[in-house]
């Protein structure tokens, strides 16, 4: 075991995958100089600088051309490489949407299974840093609506290393959303190689009164909320789906069957968010076990403002999650969480 940060764990998964298979390459802006902290860097050469380790043939520093970065990675994946694309800020992903939606998600299907696209796109959600509306997106729900993609949202260093490794192994395209509130998080991470299968939720801790499903950057906030609730005698079960596509229905349904109450924390916008999808599934499949209406704690449907006082109030935090839990238990503030 070593204590690794979230970004350190991502770096470790990338390094191990590149050492294990020379078809794995990294493509992206500023990957050579390790600007985003997952490809070593000269200053940390003792820990393994990717350019030194793997050379410029496999560490592909690109121009600012998201469409061809993603499209070329797709073409490379269709012909024998296993690219990891570092697409940096999630807001930049929109420039590559044609390639993502029309090529990557559709090619295997349209071509009757002739193509396989072993590709990982890493997308960093830089929200909460006063970077304003052009750098604070959390767009995974848009892509959950696109069959053909897989989506992971690791929320701890250990999960990040294991899930990313499975993503790189996968012969299907996987998008890895990495929330910046998690980057500094540190924990013991196994030194050896390991994989966490896609599509398996994690029960962060068990409880019997209310189920809290928390996604990505809301997991630590939900943790705080659940800890506080526990002190007040309320036993909350915290579930991190970890993978949004495929989604572990079973884990969520089993939990709701026991608790009868569900709160979902989701840093994406409220309308058609991941929380909306999970709510719909539970309402359809487990309505009879529900003792109270489901509550979503999401980001309201407004754009992300610059001023810290404006931005800070928008994302789901421990307080809002705790209030929501109290509400489904009939204890909390009567005011509805509608935004």
């Amino acid at each position: 075991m070593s204590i690794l940060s979230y970004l350190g764990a991502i770096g470790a998964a990338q390094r191990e995958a590149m050492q294990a298979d020379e078809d794995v390459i990294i493509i992206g802006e500023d990957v050579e100089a390790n600007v985003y902290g997952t490809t070593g860097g000269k200053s940390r050469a003792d820990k393994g600088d990717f350019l030194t380790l793997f050379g410029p043939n496999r560490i592909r520093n690109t121009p600012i051309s998201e469409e061809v970065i993603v499209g070329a990675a797709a073409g490379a994946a269709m012909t024998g490489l296993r690219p990891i694309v570092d697409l940096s800020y999630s807001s930049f992903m929109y420039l590559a949407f044609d390639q993502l939606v029309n090529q990557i998600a559709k090619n295997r299907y349209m071509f009757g299974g002739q193509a396989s696209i072993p590709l990982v796109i890493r997308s960093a959600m830089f929200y909460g840093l006063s970077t304003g509306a052009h750098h604070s997106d959390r767009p995974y729900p848009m892509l959950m609506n696109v069959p053909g993609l897989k989506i992971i949202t690791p929320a701890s260093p250990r999960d990040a290393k294991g899930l990313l490794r499975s993503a790189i192994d996968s012969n299907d395209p996987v998008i890895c959303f990495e929330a910046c509130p998690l980057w500094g998080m540190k924990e013991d991470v196994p030194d050896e190689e390991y994989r966490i299968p896609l599509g398996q939720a994690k029960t962060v801790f068990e409880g019997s009164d209310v189920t809290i499903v928390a996604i990505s950057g809301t997991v630590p906030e939900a943790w705080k909320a659940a800890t506080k609730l526990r002190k007040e005698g309320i036993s909350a079960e915290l579930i991190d789906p970890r993978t949004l596509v495929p989604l572990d229905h079973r884990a969520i349904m089993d939990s709701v069957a026991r608790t009868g109450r569900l709160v979902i924390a989701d840093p994406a916008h409220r309308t058609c968010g991941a929380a909306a999808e999970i709510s719909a599934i539970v309402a359809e499949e487990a309505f009879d076990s529900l003792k109270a209406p489901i509550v979503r704690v999401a980001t309201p449907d407004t754009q992300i403002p610059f001023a810290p006082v404006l931005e800070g109030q928008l994302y789901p935090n421990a307080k809002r999650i705790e209030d929501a839990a109290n509400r489904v238990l009939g204890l909390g503030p009567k005011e509805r969480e509608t935004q």
Partner: protein
Amino acid sequence: MNIERETLLEMQRRMLRIRRFDERCSKLVKFGHIPGTVHTSIGQEAQVVGATVALGPEDYMTGNHRSHGHPIGKGSNLGPLMAELFGKATGVCGGKGGSLHLADFSVGSLGESGIVGSSIPIATGAALTAKVKGTGRVSLAFFGDGASNQGGLYESMNLASVWGLPVVFLCENNQYALSTPAHTVTAGVVAERAAGFDLPGVRVDDGQDVLKVYEAVRIAICRARAGEGPSLIEVMTYRFNEHSEGLRLGVDYRNADERDLWRSRDPIEIFRAWLIGNGVASATALDAMDEEVLAEVEAAVEFAEESPDPDAATAFRDLYTEPFGVTA
């Protein structure tokens, strides 16, 4: 230029295959035997075949909505192509792609694209694989004059140039993007845009001459294979038929004189005369070749007609290599 007799004859055979295949499609779509729409390459056979014959069997290729000529030119079997247009289980894509999205990986065809310009980055990526793995393969992207105004082309040309990727960008300039004349929406000359990316740009003014196209593409491919990077080739040509058939977009936006002038420059007739004039083949032999091709196309249509529809459950197949949910 010294081209083997066999190759010369193969060029004519593949042009004929495209012509006869597309003529048949044009009828079949009008009578509803082929669902949806087709975009034929009739009139553009030299531009297609000059390029596909210059490529090796291992080389990659991507295309666009004018989609049948590319895989036929690269050597695909006609039966599974036609069956795909019919939406049959035996189609090259199992009936899930159709005319717009033909792909035949067995001949290096990585896919046609219904989105104008969208497959150019894919071809660029296939060239990246060739470069990273040192396979010596080359990749070629077919796209229209309309697509030459899509940004992805320039991102691709720039990336291919700085990375020295073995890719050939081939603009099929048939002078119209649907109803829009190229000169009204395209500044300057497409081929000259290459200079801005520090790569060779060549315009083949007579794209009805298969040998001219072949020679230009051959040079670009040699360059790519030698590790000297990408090239842009613009081939001037003309489509003889409507933009697309089956949708009844029957608006007359092209001048009849212009159409007649280009129709008199039929690439198959031009090359036929060349083959006979240069003693490569007799008129009788070429007629026999045409008969063979017609029979091949007929057999492809029969194959398609007799093939079963896809099983309904296959709508849920081939989305993921590791299926789940409705795809499991």
